[in-house]
């Protein structure tokens, strides 16, 4: 067998879709190829040789080379940004384009989402952003304020685990009706919109959420804009400071 640089000469090759995967994997392939060529060994000999294995130093260098280009990663877990702020971009908040439309009552439509299950009446409450451990801890310690419609940018079920059942409603800026948060809100009977797209919503706004909308059918209506439930801001009523 030859000691060719694996994957650099493969047929039907293509670049990865995403910048981090392409950057990391292409750099790792290059290191493997260099090490193999320098060893003078066949692939079969080299792949089983512990002395030729890539080490934690190699992978640290791969990441550093990419960071040295000025690239910064998107964060997902709050702890990642806290522990390594130099590696991550600061998260963007809810956009406010100023182009939001109004509903039939003249209220500003500040978002839409996929309804998880239908309830008999729309729900009015106060939008409160719940996206950090500190906010959850405060609500766990001091209680969830009445009429809280939690605005959550996390479709998982763990961040809000100890307080989820105390919310009046949930609006989640991610996931689908089948995400963990969707499953849990259905079990608790807490009205919930998933995959919410928000524009102009602020912490403390008084909002009405169209939880009376039929639940989204992921096989039929998931991509139908008319099937999405609306979130409207009740003007002149905000707890925002």
């Amino acid at each position, binding site marked *: 067998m030859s000691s060719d640089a694996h994957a650099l000469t493969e047929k039907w090759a293509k670049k990865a879709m995403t910048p981090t995967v392409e950057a990391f*994997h292409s750099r790792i392939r290059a290191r493997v190829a260099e090490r193999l060529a320098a060893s003078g060994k066949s692939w079969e000999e080299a792949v089983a040789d512990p002395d030729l294995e890539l080490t934690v130093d190699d992978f640290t260098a791969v990441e550093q080379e990419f960071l040295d280009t000025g690239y910064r990663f998107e*964060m997902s*877990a709050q702890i990642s940004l806290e522990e390594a702020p130099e590696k991550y971009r600061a998260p963007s908040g809810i956009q406010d384009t100023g182009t939001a439309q109004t509903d039939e009552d003249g209220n500003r439509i500040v978002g839409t989402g996929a309804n998880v*299950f239908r309830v008999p009446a729309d729900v009015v409450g106060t939008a409160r952003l719940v996206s950090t451990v500190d906010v*959850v801890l405060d609500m766990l310690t001091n209680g969830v304020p009445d009429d809280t419609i939690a605005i959550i940018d996390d479709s*998982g079920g763990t961040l809000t685990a100890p307080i989820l059942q105390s919310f009046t409603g949930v609006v989640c800026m991610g996931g689908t009706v089948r995400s963990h948060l969707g499953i849990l809100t259905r079990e608790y009977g807490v009205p919930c919109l998933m995959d919410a797209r928000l524009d102009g919503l602020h912490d403390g706004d008084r909002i009405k959420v169209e939880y009376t909308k039929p639940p989204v059918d992921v096989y039929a209506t998931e991509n139908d804009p008319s099937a999405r439930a609306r979130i409207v801001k009740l003007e002149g009523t905000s707890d925002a400071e």
Partner: protein
Amino acid sequence: MPSDHTYAELLDLNAWIRKNSDAFHWQCTARTVQESKLFPVNPYIAMSYLNAWYRYPSLFRTLEQTMTAEELGDRAREVSSASGIIQNGIIPQFYLGGRQILIDMGMLRPTDALDDVAYVLDFTKRLNLSYHRHHAHILPSDAGHRAQVLPERVVQVFHADAFGVKPGDRLHTAAGRFLAQLSQYAFLSHCECRLGINNSGPYKIGESGEMLVRDVVDLAEGDYPWLDGVAAEVAFNNYTMPVILKDTHFSIVDDWASFEATPSYSHDNVTAIGLYTSDYLSDGYVPVAMDNPATLADFLEHEREVLAKATSDLWNVMAGWTREQLVDSGLLVYYAVPKDLFHIAGIYDQSDWMLVEDRAQRFKPLMNDEYGRDLIAELVGYISLTSQQGNDYTMSKHSGAPGDMWSTIPYSVLADDEFTRGVGPIRSGSTSLPAKSSTWTTTEGRLTLDDANRRAAALRPLPAQEPYRFLDDRWIKDHPGDERAEELYRHTQRRSRLLAGKGAGLSGADIEVLRA
């Protein structure tokens, strides 16, 4: 030198690899890439695949020196534990995921670790064939997303003993609240993944009813060290709640043991429930507080409070963890999906399942949130990695994409192509998490691990012993009066409130009469 694997063997292995590719792609795209503000989920998923790649071959070879994959599947089918539909089915996926990542990084070729790959895949195939023996499909997706894993004798007990409920009843309300809290706690105790929640069925009940068997596992002090203390009051490690619904069809019970129903699942449509526990020591299902509806409601209300407190306590622990601890815990939950097979065999070792091997640890510097997210999305969602691409005419099963998730084994290893045999023995590992300190919660009480292993090794469940092991429902059909059938049914019925001693002759209609 050609490999000593046969052409027929490789044909079968590659078909199993491709089935896993297609099945996992459907699941992953249906369930979406998971995310969490608390846990770095995708980095830990990627790390778990790598840990599986390096450790599963040695562990499974050791396991089969004690108990075969087929017997493990038979034993697992008789109880609800962390060797259920999702765990058994997902073992090859995690292993192949590690292989594919390394192939895409250029650190591995599809001809590498040939003997390991062949063995792990063969082991997982035999395990799943055995576990799913009753409906004779290897995965629920092969059955049109249906998972009827239980034989009649078990379903009859669940059917007979379920207490009738209706909305507004104390038991109906208590069951709904318990299930919600149980699900919440299971997601947290499993670090944001669904591996604690299994559903099987549905099973037809009368003209318009269907039963879903809802299992939630690994809840009490046991294998996960982070449950030490916070879960000390949780009464049982595994719960099984059979629920019978009216006017509801469970259209999907999938390879991850998740369900979808038409119309959507509503607790208002639940007409009967039961509650059981079981594990590798229980030899079947043990009713929990099933004396009467009031005792069951008492238990559910109390246990819901226990689980609510455990949820808060555990959340407070996890909220104080470092990123590495959050990654390690999640990756170990994923990686350890085969662990209960080792409990069944009586050879469970904490160091086999709660350590991250050095060969996997070295990848941690890569595992920022974005890389983890995009790697998993490309690997199991978009099928967009260069190593996954096929020729320009290729259209994969579900997406039509020109590639497939997991690389097959090149047949050239049967001719003159070179290959390597395996990844070698397990090496040392470590974890950032606190060491396990408490006992194991089992159906025989709180035990030391040595005691639990000793009891498991000594256990000889009747349904897993010959000749009963091979007396399936097809044999029962032709031997309804056979004493062996009677003995097998009476064994399963021995803890039943209504069916104890009734034997093998009952039909579904007879059960309805007994329930009336």
